[in-house]
């Protein structure tokens, strides 16, 4: 599953870099895409050979585990590998009837919506600001990308410490402002903490794409609008934003996938899914049920559901992003 996500973002990262490189090229996506589609190998064997390493890695880390998870979702198994019983849809039915699972679904939705809005909003603001700075643009850009390079477990621990109500300096600031900050007690505070910690890391990624997309918006159109008397705000909402929609939609999907799968280390380091399960998202529950509780059947059933979600999202992304949300210039 993670392999899937990575390959999606990997491809797109390349695309973003190309976009950033091809700054102010007016026929950007059309030209790049048809160029890609046109290239073909006369020698098919060579093509397969070149694909083999990647396919092998996918097979090892994605296909084999997925198939095993799919099988396990319909089994009740002794973790030691002793006995296996086929239980049909029991694991899925149990999930459907489980209030904690639905609580995790709700927590995940709240988490992902808050995460996407915060990440996109702030990244857009930063990208816009960085685009308008003339001196030291490269420095700002580099600084803004750094959080992406920090291991999530480490950033999670740092955030948990900064906001710890007993010892954290930022928590003390909040207390002195009269906020009864305590993420160990209040579910809302805990959710805020994991959203902030997760967004902090993902903003870099979003920033990179939005910055590249902003560079690629043709200045001639913006200038023409300015000549026609449109103010900066109007120019942004009427011209720049619509031209950013493909990138925004792509980032939205990436953020959702990030929120669904890759925030496990941050949640584990900051709240462990607490208090009272308030920040237990679907992926955290997979870990808790499978790795802590050793309930492999239920855990596998949950990862199958997550995998279906990821597939659906990827499908939507390819369908909608590539075909619909396109404003050719």
């Amino acid at each position, binding site marked *: 599953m993670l392999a899937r996500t990575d390959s999606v973002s990997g491809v797109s990262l390349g695309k973003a870099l190309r976009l950033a490189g091809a700054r102010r090229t007016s026929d950007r996506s059309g030209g790049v895409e048809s160029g890609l589609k046109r290239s073909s190998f006369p020698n098919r064997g060579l093509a397969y050979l070149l694909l083999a390493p990647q396919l092998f890695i996918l097979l090892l880390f994605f296909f084999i585990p997925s198939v095993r998870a799919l099988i396990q979702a319909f089994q009740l198994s*002794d973790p030691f*590998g002793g006995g296996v019983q086929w239980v049909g849809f029991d694991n899925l039915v149990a999930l459907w009837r489980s209030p904690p699972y639905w609580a995790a679904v709700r927590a995940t939705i709240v988490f992902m919506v808050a995460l996407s809005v915060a990440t996109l909003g702030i990244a857009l603001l930063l990208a816009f600001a960085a685009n308008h700075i003339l001196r030291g643009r490269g420095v700002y850009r580099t600084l803004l990308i750094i959080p992406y390079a920090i291991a999530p477990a480490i950033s999670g621990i740092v955030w*948990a410490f900064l906001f*710890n109500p*007993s010892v954290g300096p930022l928590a003390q600031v909040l207390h002195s402002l009269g906020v009864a900050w305590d993420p160990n007690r*209040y579910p809302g505070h805990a959710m805020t903490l994991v959203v902030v910690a997760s967004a902090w890391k993902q903003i870099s990624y979003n920033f990179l794409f939005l910055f590249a997309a902003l560079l690629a918006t043709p200045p001639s159109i913006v200038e023409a609008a300015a000549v026609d008397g449109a103010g900066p705000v109007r120019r942004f909402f009427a011209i720049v934003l619509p031209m950013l929609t493909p990138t925004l939609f792509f980032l939205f999907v990436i953020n959702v996938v990030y929120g669904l799968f890759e925030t496990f280390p941050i949640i584990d380091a*900051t709240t462990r899914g607490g208090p009272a*399960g308030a920040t237990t998202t679907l992926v955290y529950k997979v870990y808790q049920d499978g790795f802590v509780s050793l309930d492999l059947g239920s855990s596998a059933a949950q990862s199958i559901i997550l995998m279906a979600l990821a597939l659906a999202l990827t499908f939507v992304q390819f369908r909608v992003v590539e075909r619909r949300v396109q404003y050719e210039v």
Partner: protein
Amino acid sequence: MKTMAKACLALAMLSTPLGAAQAATTVEFWHAMSGELADRVNELVDKFNKSQNDYAVRAVAKGTYDEVVNSMIAAYRAKQQPAIVQVNERGFLTMVNSGATLPVAELMAKEGYKINWGDFIAPIATYYTKDGAMMSMPFNASTPILFYNKDHFKAAGFDAPADTWKGLEEQLYAIKKKGVSKCAAVLPADWEWSYLENYSAIEDQPYATKRNGFDGYGAEYVFNKTKLVGHIEQVKKHLDDGLMELAGQGINPGQLFIAGQCSTVINSTAAHAAVEAGAKFQWSATFLPHEEGSTAKNSTIGGAALWTLKGKTEPEYKAVAAFYDYLGKTETQVWWHKATGYVPVTSAAYAAAKAEGYYKDKPTREIAVLQLMRGTPSDNSRGFRLGNSAQANIAIKEEIMAGLLGQKPVQKAMDMAVERGNQVLRQFEKVNAGKN
């Protein structure tokens, strides 16, 4: 992977003294100790390796108790398991029913060691014995006790904590009101152990039916109908009134006590090592409080035992048996007890520590032993034998915490905790059908 393991092994051999390097057989011992306690485990293994030339044990820290079980299961399925693994007390039924372990009594008898199993301290022996045979080697046994900041108590006008919850509560309110400390108490990370299980044992309240599961499958949690409900209400009041703090992730609650921030903490007696090393104030410890008018029963053990995994060679089992024999020796036990704060697992070791006057200097080190051996154990205080206890506790803690934080009424939270806990028990019985 294999070459990497070999490389690691080679490195380890290089770094050990000559005596150990010549050992004929090396076995791995996966454990869950960290910090000070991990250093003590390494010391223990080192002592064993130097005590003879035939065998060597290699201690490998594998993270928390849960992580050790996980790694062990993955390794077992891949046939790369260690010979010895440390599993916490609540993993007992999971390990016994796994079919992956060798009972320690059987192993020692086969290898020709005569161990006096009757000398093991009763609450520890009961926990790890099934059908009259010791299943795993008791290793680090503990029980929760009440640590307190003497300076804080003195400043509030008290010599020591009261014996009862009601008395202690009044003192905590006084500490808070007089501004001695903003944190009169802190909820420990393993509060299910101290505030739920041990409270029930000490107050002689049933935790689950079928003698807390000792009578086999079919037990059901019943703590939502006992005095425990009132206790949880009281803890909630302490949280609401700001007497008690929640430490949260990344912060060890015991550390808040050691830093002098919190006046009391109910923690394992094994916290002695850290408190002695870190506390820069006058501190002491005492027995867990009990309710007014009730006769306090014994508390129950925590900690872990060493399990021997199947699928190893005969020479390896000889090494394991030699290590266990060394562990059970009185000198080893006394050393371990002093170095860590865990209780000695045999009566002989306890008697030896007492005879040399150890408890005159360190009276708090005896509290756990006295508390464990207090009175005659009842069906409610003997311990717990419930399947998949780790999983059940996640659900139970989640629900009761929701009650403590006021997200739902305490009674309702405890009803939900019982319901979800019972689901886990039934699931465990389904997976392990026929192994009762």
